[in-house]
């Protein structure tokens, strides 16, 4: 089974990389991009029987820094 974890900077935490991407899109002529937030996706290949709670524990301990980041877990 697989899990996909999305990690994003929390709202209210400045994302200078997202800002730089927004500027670059504007420079390329893409209009109307009001904001860009950049995050990361972490894919986990898990042994059968692993639970979403296991992945949540991984996020809390290592995969996300909850001082600045939020995360969502998708199991498939």
């Amino acid at each position, binding site marked *: 089974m697989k899990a996909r974890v999305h990690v994003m900077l929390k709202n209210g935490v*400045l994302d*200078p990389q997202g800002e*730089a991407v927004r500027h670059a899109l504007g420079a390329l002529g893409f209009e109307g991009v009001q904001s860009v937030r950049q995050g990361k996706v972490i894919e986990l290949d898990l042994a059968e029987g692993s639970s979403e709670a296991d992945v949540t524990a991984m996020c809390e301990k*290592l995969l996300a820094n909850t001082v600045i980041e939020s995360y969502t877990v998708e199991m498939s």
Partner: protein
Amino acid sequence: MRAAVVVFPGSNCDRDLAVAFEAAGAEVEMVWHKDSELPQGVDIVGIPGGFSYGDYLRCGAIAAQSPIVRSVKAHAERGGYVLGICNGFQVLTETGLLPGALLRNAGLKYICRTVGLEVQTSDSDFTAGYNAGDVINIPIAHHDGNYFADDETIARLQGEDRVAFTYTDNPNGARADIAGILSQNRRVLGMMPHPERAADAGHGGTDGVALFRALAGALTTA
């Protein structure tokens, strides 16, 4: 004073930090990230700058889970001293020994130059050699030095006199111009600037010397 300096794969300021401790009179032992115990009788652990584990995942995140850092945490919880510089500061926030986190610099660029720091408190064994309000010149060299914490945490740090140093001209977007902070018991200091790079006349500046001397003074008589 007995000091231990932690070496991770990717540390690059470990030897400079050891030299600065030695110059202040410390006996220094290097400890490897896979070691699980600190040497007996260590007063202070230095966590040096660099790019531990290639900055994978987040700066300091993997180092914070290494065997040696578990014993550094236990050492701090027993009231031991810890000095984390640059990547070492990032490691300390990732372990939770210090609050907040270090984000990418607001200008997105890696910055390597000497900056002015205002000493905010002389009430710690790290900063007792300065007067509050002194401006000292210390080099910075980082890409992720933009200190972030929520409003409540910033207010608590300020209210408890735990901001050790602020930038006189904020280079990286850090909240409240914060360059270095102390733990509640004032025995753990994390700072982005490198006092060990301003510790010898050959460095072009010696404003960092007072930090190591103050520590040596406090920890030798203790």
